[in-house]
């Protein structure tokens, strides 16, 4: 585990931000931190980045209790992010890299690699003021990853990105993961969760209400429903419930307890010509809405 979060609690004057939060974030995986606005995601991230401290509980970073020196091994892209407007791009990135404990020469060399990689070589001496929003986002991303952190924390990384830059960002995140970096990724965009994450945790009202491997979670929320495409007339068959049959040749079915899929198919093909048979995997969007409304 890269990060073990144990019994973490945090309260502000007027509300509880985190209550008895336990999470295990495995090394080298992309971990999705989900939850509605105000659930406590940012509070949790701020404790991991040591911007604030917890009231109770502890965090182990790579097996050791989290301490100040670990800040240099974490890269953090906050949801609300900005740059010094008057500084030049190269200067600014160098400053931010040095603040992460990189020696100057190494930082310059690494930054140059990134400038070539993202095809922004000519930006080094441009003031940030002259950059478009997309360019600033690239700059911020470099600042987050240049010191090659063990843990990369991205808070709503895709917000404000155009589709091209969003794609680039996705590729970079996957490339970074391939190098063994752990990514903690907070979002409420479920499609990016499905695309990127290996593990997820859902936080609502300061508590972890759901966590685990992405596939395992999806399996857990399966409702034993199957989607079929067919020719012929679908009549009611004992043991098979028609959940929806909105257009001709397409239906969603649920089989009664104990009925296997082979058995069901055998029953079905007596009546219809089956073209497609597929289990309905709940989307994270559905899971999210279901779990959040259950726990509210």
């Amino acid at each position: 585990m890269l990060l073990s979060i144990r019994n973490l609690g945090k309260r502000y004057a007027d509300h509880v931000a985190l209550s008895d939060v336990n999470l295990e974030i495995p090394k080298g995986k992309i971990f999705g931190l989900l939850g509605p606005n105000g659930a406590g995601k940012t509070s949790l991230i701020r404790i991991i980045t040591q911007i604030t401290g917890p009231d109770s509980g502890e965090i182990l970073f790579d097996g050791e209790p989290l301490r100040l020196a670990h800040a240099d091994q974490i890269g953090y892209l906050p949801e609300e992010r900005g740059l010094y407007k008057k500084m030049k791009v190269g200067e600014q990135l160098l400053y931010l890299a040095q603040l992460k404990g990189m020696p100057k020469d190494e930082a310059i060399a690494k930054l140059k690699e990134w400038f070539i990689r993202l095809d922004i070589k000519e930006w080094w001496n441009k003031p940030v003021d002259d950059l478009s929003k997309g360019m600033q986002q690239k700059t911020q991303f470099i600042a987050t990853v240049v010191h090659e952190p063990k843990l990369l924390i991205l808070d709503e990384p895709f917000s404000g990105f155009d589709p091209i830059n969003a794609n680039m960002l996705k590729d970079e995140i996957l490339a970074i993961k391939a190098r063994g970096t752990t990514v903690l990724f907070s979002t409420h965009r479920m499609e990016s969760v499905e695309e990127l994450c290996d593990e997820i945790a859902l936080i609502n009202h300061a508590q972890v209400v759901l966590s685990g491997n992405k596939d395992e979670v999806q399996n857990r929320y399966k409702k034993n429903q199957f989607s079929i495409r067919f020719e012929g007339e679908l009549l009611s068959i004992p043991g098979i419930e028609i959940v929806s049959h909105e257009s001709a040749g397409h239906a969603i079915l649920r089989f009664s307890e104990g009925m296997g899929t082979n058995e069901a198919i055998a029953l079905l093909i007596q009546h219809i010509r089956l073209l497609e048979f597929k289990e309905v995997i709940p989307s994270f969007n559905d899971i999210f809405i279901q779990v959040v409304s259950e726990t509210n």
Partner: protein
Amino acid sequence: MNKILLVIQREYVTRVLKKSFWISSLLAPVLITAIYAIPIWLAMKDKEQKQIAIFDQSHLLKSADLQDKELVFTFTNVPEQVYKTQFAKSGYDAFVSIPVDVLANPKGVHIYSSKNIGLNLKESVERLIQNKVRQELMYKAGISAKVYEDTQVDIDSETITVSENGGETSSSSAGAMILAGIMGLILYVTLLLYGSQVMNGVIEEKSNRIIEVIISSVKPYQLMLGKIIGVGLVGLTQFLLWIVLTIGLTQVTGKIYASKAKATIAVDQGKASADMRNAMQDSPMGEVTKVLESTNIPLILVAFLFYFFVGYLLYSSLFAAIGSAVESATEAQQFTFIVMIPIIMSFLLAQYTMQDPDSTVAFWASMIPFTSPINMMVRLPYGVPVWELVLSMSLLVVGFLACSWISARIYRVGILMYGKKATWKELSKWLFYKG
């Protein structure tokens, strides 16, 4: 490298590389030198001589009575009626007519000229005639010219400060006042100037939203301290530039004047250099020079830098706390007044301290950390016992530590607060938030 050093370096370098920094660093010494040099230059300048024709019907004046650096008098017998018509051709700048009965009718003197004559010329002519007329009247009243001369005395006291062991130093209270006033004013302006620079820097980081990235690398107090020290070093750099450039420029102008004076000595028997010395002594800078001769300049300089830097640290930490609590400069105004009140207060108190540097009010004003930077610097040229200086400096350091502790606690909460209007109640709550 230590992270605070990195922050200091960024704050310092970005500011020192700005054009405005160099403009203000160069402009101030030029202005100071000008204030010092222009009166001397005016005094040394070769005056243009004015030609004046004089028609003295009273026959009172002799050419010996009409000696003046700028005026050359020529006696003429042309009556004024005639002269008026020929004036343009005559080549004289002015024509003075003195009536026969000038002793009884001193208002009968007329000065004619083609252009409006300067006030200086009018006064010079009047003074020469007036002296002669007074002398003549006194002579008639039985007072000899010798007695008249002897009564023309000037009183100019020399003030002397006596130290405990009886040593004497000549001092100038007027000069001390000017020096005190200048230092008080500079402190007043710079405390406000650099303090609000810190505040704006904090607001910039917060409204830019870069703050969260930075404090995931450094602790908030490191960032705050780094910013304050960085901006403070910019201030010190500016002072050093001001001092070095001012000394350099005044030395150079002094040398130029000295060589000029030497050149005129040959012709004018040292009159010019005496003029220069007089001009220097009469000008306000001359008074200050006198004080500088009688006071401990290194002490004043060190004390000044100390009071600037520590006073600045104290105020700017408060400015930083305010900057952290708000999201824009306009929103900051409701809080800045509370920090500006003590600065303005100390400047007002300084006016009083200058009048009476040893009063109880002046003593306390130079002890209390908020008012002490300006008021102690104002008292210093008049002489302050060592224990008072040490106590005042120690209290200021303690004051700074207390203020920065309070400020750091507000700052660490404030920089992450968005969309919540800060109130005094809110700020006081932040003080007691846990890490």
